[in-house]
């Protein structure tokens, strides 16, 4: 479909409806980020930005992050606004299909997990578990542009 993009993560290739995801997030970004009052902590970028990661670890950390967003973020982001909820579920559906595609590649051992990505993902989980679930999920959703910028 229009706006689909093939992203390469090591030996793995994932087709992503990036324009659709970006448009969905842009529509709710201000609303979601306004629900996150904590400026001193970032789930994805604390203490180090994703951009500092070794490129060989991109595939593994992306695999982990797709699972993280599907299993720990989207389901805890219900709001009182049905428009926002619709946008969130549309993004969640896109992530679900990307999770499956990258998961298949991971199972074929083409998505090697090095120490650096394992430690980085441990840090992301620690940042997430340092907050209550709803706050952590809302903050993670508010950082989706950080993830998308890095993936691209």
């Amino acid at each position, binding site marked *: 479909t229009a706006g689909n993009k093939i992203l390469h993560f090591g030996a793995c290739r994932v087709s992503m409806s*990036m324009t659709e995801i970006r448009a969905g997030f842009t529509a709710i*970004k201000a609303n979601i*980020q306004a629900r996150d009052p904590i400026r*001193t902590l970032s789930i994805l970028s604390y203490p180090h930005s994703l951009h500092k990661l070794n490129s060989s670890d991109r595939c593994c950390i992306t695999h982990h992050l797709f699972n993280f967003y599907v299993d720990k973020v989207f389901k805890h982001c219900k709001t009182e606004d049905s428009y926002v909820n619709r946008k969130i579920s549309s993004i969640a559906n896109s992530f679900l299909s990307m999770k499956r595609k990258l998961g298949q590649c991971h199972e074929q051992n083409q998505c090697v997990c090095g120490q650096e990505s394992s430690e980085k993902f441990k840090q992301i989980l620690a940042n997430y578990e340092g907050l209550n679930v709803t706050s952590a999920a809302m903050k993670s959703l508010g950082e989706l542009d950080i993830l998308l*910028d890095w993936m*691209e």
Partner: protein
Amino acid sequence: SGELYCSLLNPRNVRFESINMKNVLHWSAPEGTGSGVLYRVKYSVYGVGKWIRKPECRNINRTWCDLSSETSDYEDQYYASVKAFLNGMFSDWVETTRFNPLTDTKIDPPMVSVSSTDRSLSIILTAPEKWKRSPEEESVSLLQLYPGLQYNVSVLNKKTKKRWFFSISNHTLVVPRLEPETAYCVSARIHVTTPILDSGFSKEYCIATLKDKA
């Protein structure tokens, strides 16, 4: 004993206005205040959270403050905040929404240069450069920041008013099979598919094709 202090209404509409990653904080004066209001500005990097004062924007009476230097790392996101002072009274700090330079900037149109033969136009397009601290600093084209950057080019035959549109990733375009001794006008814009960014169209560059050589 009760503490008596008068508070000033807050600055309004505090936001970043960014073009080619020249990131300037803008705001409107508190409602009902004329001249004489002074402002202070601070900013913070999201995830770090420590507020940092901007000395060059301390006690200023204008309603903007250039934070391009402080927000030049486009892998980070930022907040900025403004406080108003007048005759011993002061407002609250009023914050922006979270600012992501990569997705929240606007892009200028491309530079367009056109040359012609008797039956074709050659068009060269140049994407704008990212803001830089000084002329000596190395230039970074926005093409490097946005790999998905494309150009939409419009070519108008002034005589027949027929218009063509082209969408190209390359920065050069040759338009063949045109009419000799005819005026054509070219304009172009930048389109980034993701993140979603579109410049306006450039002004029109008009040129005539040459006399027919045949």
